[in-house]
């Protein structure tokens, strides 16, 4: 199981070619092409900003201004996360023919989806920076946590991708469940709200959602005050590790029999 995973770093250039291929394939049929990767969360953020600032006046309770920057710093990472959750259950089926004839480790195919999301997210960072400066905010010492957040999100997405891909072989209904899970994470993560909206006693439990800890690290670039005691992050990172270990076990634990089930 471990030797299978240890082969992955030696295949990173092949995987990066796969990512490039997927990105080109994904956007080739649209006139604006790759712009949609950046444009979709951008337009969604504008829409939510209009709705929650002018219609529901929801940004006030959060206490973190400007609200549009708060939204943008949540929506772009969430786009990567939700894309992973939605696409991973189909990864073995989608790449079934090559999985059955290639000796690449089985986890290559779910991780391919994670790295496509990562590439899109990295390309969206300039947009986030433009919003931060246009919104009148500035970067703080918390920016050092931004790369940490990216690494943690890679682990989180990898964990979910492996769990869902492994589960889909035994329980195909996970494909339907994935869209519900995406919505659950959207409303259950601090994208539109902050932990300040909740009583103090409840706040540590919010970090059982591992994406919560990751988002705090992204947002600490602008608002270091969002950071909570380290125990909260220990909870989030503990959950990330559990998901990752379960995912690795589900995909690699069955050894060669996995390819028989695809």
């Amino acid at each position: 199981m471990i030797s299978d995973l240890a082969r992955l770093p030696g295949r990173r250039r092949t995987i990066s070619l796969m990512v490039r291929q997927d990105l080109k394939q994904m956007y080739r049929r649209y006139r604006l092409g790759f712009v949609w990767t950046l444009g979709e969360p951008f337009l969604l953020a504008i829409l939510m900003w209009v709705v929650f600032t002018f219609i529901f006046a929801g940004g006030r309770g959060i206490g973190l201004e400007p609200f549009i920057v708060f939204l943008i710093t949540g929506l772009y990472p969430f786009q990567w996360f939700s894309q992973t959750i939605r696409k991973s259950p189909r990864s073995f089926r989608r790449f079934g023919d090559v999985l059955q004839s290639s000796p690449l480790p089985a986890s290559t195919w779910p991780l391919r989806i994670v790295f496509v999301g990562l590439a899109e997210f990295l390309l969206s960072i300039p947009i986030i920076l433009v919003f931060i400066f246009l919104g009148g905010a500035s970067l703080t010492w918390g920016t050092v946590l931004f790369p940490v957040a990216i690494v943690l999100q890679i682990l989180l997405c990898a964990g979910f991708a492996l769990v869902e891909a492994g589960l889909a072989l035994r329980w195909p209904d996970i494909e339907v469940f994935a869209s519900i899970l995406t919505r659950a994470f959207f409303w259950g993560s601090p994208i539109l709200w902050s932990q300040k909206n909740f009583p103090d006693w409840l706040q540590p439990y919010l970090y059982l959602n591992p994406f919560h800890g990751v988002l705090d690290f992204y947002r600490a670039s602008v608002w270091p005050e969002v950071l909570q005691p380290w125990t909260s992050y220990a909870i989030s990172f503990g959950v990330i590790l559990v998901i990752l270990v379960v995912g690795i076990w589900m995909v690699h634990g069955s050894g060669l029999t996995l390819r028989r089930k695809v």
Partner: protein
Amino acid sequence: MLASFTDAGLEGFRLKKKQQIIKGVPRMTATHERESYWVFRGLTTTLDAGEALVLVSRDPARTNAALRVWANLLPVDVGQVQRPQRGLLVSAPQSRWVRELSVEQSIRMIAGIYGVPDNAIDALVAPVASTADVESVLHRPLEDFSKKLRYQIAFAVAIHADSDVVMFDHTTVVGSGDFRKQCLDRALAMRDGGKGLVVTTTKPQIALHLGTKAVILRGKRADQVGVAEAAEFLIRDKVKGRKRSRRRDEDDDDDSGIGF
């Protein structure tokens, strides 16, 4: 000895149409049930350096499964298997593996998918490009060319990759025209150079020209035979009308199987 099977067997599942009795008349219905069967059983053979083993069967799924066991992609349910240290399984590269890439990137991608590690791929690009006749078009998109170029690249990767056993599955094709004519010599050179070759084919002339030994795979037994007998089996099989494999890709519609 590079690889061997000792009384090996692999069980698989297939979908079978259900028979139902409707108004007293037995009918095959659209509903399916899973049925387990022996993909191959009692397979005993060895592969030494400089040998070319030809695997033939009425059902290409049986020979391909045996190859995938040697390629460490499937386990066996009974018996023993000794896998090659450095085996390379060659199957026809599908268009969606490389659709958006340049010719050079396609070489890297196909080699990567065949299991060549990144650090070995750099050294592979130039000889593969030379063998596949694509040196002058390395930076052009692969989609500008016909699918035959893809097959040429795959075959060139098989020739140059650092492996002791090269396995061609039944989907492997080798391009067309001049390139096809050179492939038999190249495959023979590989064999005579000390590599072990395993070929699953439906073409009698391939068995005769390339093979040094052969195995006929059937559901309940596997017979080690001479290449002439394997070729005769394929000719008789062709007359009977052989079972066609399930097609997965849109460009699988041509005459598949390695041929020179």
